[in-house]
């Protein structure tokens, strides 16, 4: 009999997994604590940075990590110990890696999921006035946070579970 994640859906969709994953990654890699923020969509000015890591296998979907360019520069700085006055390739690289670690930490929270779900390499998108739309997701967990006062949000989207 094959493995199915369907019966673990409540465990997988538990919103506390996302908070714990964010806490783990930020504490370990940036040495600081994140605070949960309100549920309102933050307006990321002057431009937003979005990193996406896809999930494949028995669980398909994506981990989406978003912030403004200032937050991205701050996080890259905390991660590398360098200063970034602008949004350059190193900042984008660091931002993608944070998303990668968030995705990995999130799926590792549920052992049955971890073994049957692969990760894509991160893609990073920068710009203004764009949306990421997923048609009828199975579930979505979307939380807002701040790190040293800088806002960001993380979304786990599941568009298929077998």
């Amino acid at each position, binding site marked *: 009999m094959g493995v199915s994640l369907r019966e673990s859906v409540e465990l997988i969709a538990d919103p506390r997994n996302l908070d714990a994953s964010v806490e*783990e*990654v930020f504490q*370990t*890699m940036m040495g600081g604590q994140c605070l949960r923020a309100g549920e309102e969509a933050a307006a990321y000015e002057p431009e937003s940075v979005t990193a996406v890591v896809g999930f494949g296998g028995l669980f398909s979907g994506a981990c989406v990590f978003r912030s403004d360019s200032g937050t991205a520069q701050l996080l*890259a700085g905390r*991660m*590398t*110990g360098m200063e970034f006055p602008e949004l350059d390739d*190193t900042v984008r*690289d*660091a931002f*993608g*890696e944070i998303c*990668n*670690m968030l*995705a*990995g*930490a999130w799926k*590792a929270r549920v*052992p049955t999921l*971890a*073994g*049957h779900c*692969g*990760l*894509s*390499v991160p893609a990073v998108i920068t710009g203004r006035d764009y949306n990421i739309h997923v048609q009828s997701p199975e579930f979505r967990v979307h939380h807002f946070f701040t790190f040293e006062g800088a806002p960001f949000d993380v979304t786990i989207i599941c568009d298929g579970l077998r």
Partner: protein
Amino acid sequence: MRRQFRSMGKLAFKNKRRAPINALWRGNLGMSEIRTLIVDDSSVMRKIVERALRQAGLDDGLVVYEAGSGAEALEVLKGAQVDMILSDINMPVMDGLEFLRQLKAQNLAPGVPVIMITTESSEEHVKQAIQCGAVGYIRKPFTAEQVKERVLPLLTAA
């Protein structure tokens, strides 16, 4: 001071930086240099791994080679001898598992310990990496202490 390592591709270079501190582990291990190849498609992550090694006490004598994929790493190893390899798994062009298979198939770096540093950390992934020849596993995110715990016993054994 960093210079391009000729013929190794744009992401591969030899890092000659030396800090005149902490020869503790180098001395204990009886090694004048610890030549380490770090393989990761993220240049930021390669720097973070290098920093973790230095924080773990391997600062003095650490010589770092870098590669952005398994394919680049194989090229580096055709021209350089290393004491240890730290590799990501999820990489474009050639992933970490295929890199391990190719290492074996091409008999490159025989006996050199390979540690995977990756977000893929399920039991299945660990088993697969060990079957392909890895001797250790570090999950991202990681601390310098975790790197030290995994790396030093391997160097001592070598």
